[in-house]
């Protein structure tokens, strides 16, 4: 049975059903419904919740809980995610699985509270210090938020790489009917051999750590991380190709913007124009192969990258396509959102 749920609350419930038993957060608009929901919900399922003193503390609580073997998560929005970056870097260094949700708002600085996609660089290129990446998803509907969140802990556990869900204020606030999955049976999950459960009875003690003071050891560790990212790219890369097979114009967009772009594609198709949408679902790893393949199609004349920023994902689009076809850009920023008609107008004016 489908339920009508707000994006933020749907993410929270999907996290609980996917096994989240520890949440650490700090209030910031537009993601407050997630910690609010978790603050009562987790205690119903034997979990724990702390309203931390800051985002810095929250991410370090995630470090502790994830290091102790629990399925732990945090959520925030742009300024708060900036504060978490040191902690995220430590989590990646120590190879701890966890989930981080960023309901992006406009920046820089305190910026605004309206939807934006201006944290793409931060999310996909590292964000904190060091050679690392997160597995970053950019869902575009409440149902997709639920589906991704529900499996995020499994994926994160598998690779020992944190998952980031990159949404925006609109996705967090929108209400849509969703199908909620069954609870995962946590008793079936294997023990994490690297976790500090504190019950070692003097044998095989575990150390959760990111300090590797010998350059050779640290270099080897970074290569291990790199190999993991390659494995993730091979297995987890996800995208949606909508009507690109005969397209002359390929619009690229992720998240909320992809919904708007899809409407624009439908309008343009009604006008008899061959336009398609290529939507990355994983932002890191970026679907490079699919973008390269579509770029090589003879019918494709140009790409139009649409974003709620001044152009961040466009760099990956250019890299992936090798710019063998021109890549144009249409974006709004600062919390302003384009309409499907805006995209239609841009395409008609700049391409046709």
């Amino acid at each position, binding site marked *: 049975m489908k339920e009508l749920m707000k994006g933020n609350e749907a993410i929270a419930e999907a996290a609980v059903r996917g096994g989240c*038993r*520890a949440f*650490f957060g700090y209030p910031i608009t537009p993601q407050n419904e997630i910690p609010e929901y978790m603050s009562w919900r987790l205690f119903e399922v034997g979990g*724990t919740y*702390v309203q*931390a*003193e*800051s985002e*810095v*503390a*929250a991410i*370090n*609580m*995630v*470090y*502790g*809980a*994830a*290091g*102790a*073997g*629990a399925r*732990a998560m945090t959520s925030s929005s742009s300024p708060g995610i900036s504060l978490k970056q*040191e*902690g995220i870097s*430590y989590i990646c260094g*120590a190879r701890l699985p966890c989930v981080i949700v960023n309901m992006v708002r406009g920046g820089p600085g305190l910026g605004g509270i309206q939807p934006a996609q201006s944290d793409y660089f931060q999310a996909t290129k590292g964000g904190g210090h060091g050679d690392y990446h997160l597995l970053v998803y950019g869902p575009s509907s409440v149902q997709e938020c639920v589906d991704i969140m529900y499996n995020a802990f499994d994926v994160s556990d598998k690779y020992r790489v944190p998952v980031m869900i990159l949404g925006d204020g609109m996705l967090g606030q929108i209400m849509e009917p969703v199908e909620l999955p069954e609870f995962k049976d946590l008793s079936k999950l294997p023990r994490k051999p690297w976790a*500090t*459960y*504190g*019950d*070692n*009875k*003097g044998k095989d*003690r*575990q*150390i*959760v*750590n*990111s*300090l590797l003071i010998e350059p050779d050891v640290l270099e080897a560790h970074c290569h291990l991380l790199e190999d993991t990212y390659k494995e993730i790219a091979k297995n987890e890369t996800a995208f949606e190709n909508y009507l690109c097979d005969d397209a002359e114009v390929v619009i690229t967009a992720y998240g909320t913007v992809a919904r708007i772009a899809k409407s624009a594609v439908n309008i343009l198709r009604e006008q008899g124009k061959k336009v398609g949408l290529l939507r990355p679902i994983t932002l890191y790893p970026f679907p490079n192969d699919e973008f390269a393949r579509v770029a090589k199609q003879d019918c494709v004349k140009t790409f139009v990258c649409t974003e709620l920023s001044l152009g961040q994902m466009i760099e990956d689009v250019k890299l992936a396509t090798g710019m063998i076809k021109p890549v144009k850009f249409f974006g709004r920023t600062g919390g302003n959102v384009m309409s499907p008609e805006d995209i239609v107008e841009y395409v008609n004016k700049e391409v046709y």
Partner: protein
Amino acid sequence: MAIVYKKSNMLTDVPFHYCPGCTHGIAHKLVAEVLEEIGAEGNVVGVAPVGCAVFAYNYFNCDMQEASHGRAPAVATGIKRVLPDRIVFAYQGDGDLASIGMAEIIHAATRGEKITVIFINNAIYGMTGGQMAPTTLEGQKATTCIYGRNPEVNGHPIKVCELLSTLTGPSYIARGALCDAASVRKAKTMIRTAFQNQIDKKGFSFVELLSACPTNWGMNPEQALSYVKNEMQDLYPLGVFKEVK
């Protein structure tokens, strides 16, 4: 032959990296002995700081996590919340705890997290080479106050036990010193009480240990111990500041 003294099982065989005359080693020994004596072996998760004790995870013979600078109380909170039956402790220096990590220690304390924090106050940043700490004494020299700490410019030292004992969450707040055999014995009693409070689920427990950093104080070990005894204790009086019975 009867064994009259042996190293605690709660310490590994890895040799300490601490400087000669450093009291970090004594603090480690006391914590390890207490954990063993209260029967905590095989039931402990510790958190190491960023500071000279960063390698504490190599020394304590239990599961360990290494936290980022100042965040050990947050990390310990995360651990204790998901493993409430474990004994969880954090071990921190004064730069770590009283400067960059001030928010984390105050909030872990006020939440009454059932963890134990061991706080090494050596009035200096040891690991980074002797810069001023929040606890550096007025007039005490450091590489970032070469003529001695001047409150006009550098502010005043922070008394952490006094600060934390104003809160409701802590169940035990005490300050000991590691400067002679008698004070070391008293410090051990404090550490034992702190861990016992955690076992009894009374709330947050905290022991500050006045410590020597001969290397960055520019003293020999003996001078350093007498600085702890004669200078530090004036500003940082020893005793129990709060105890919930």
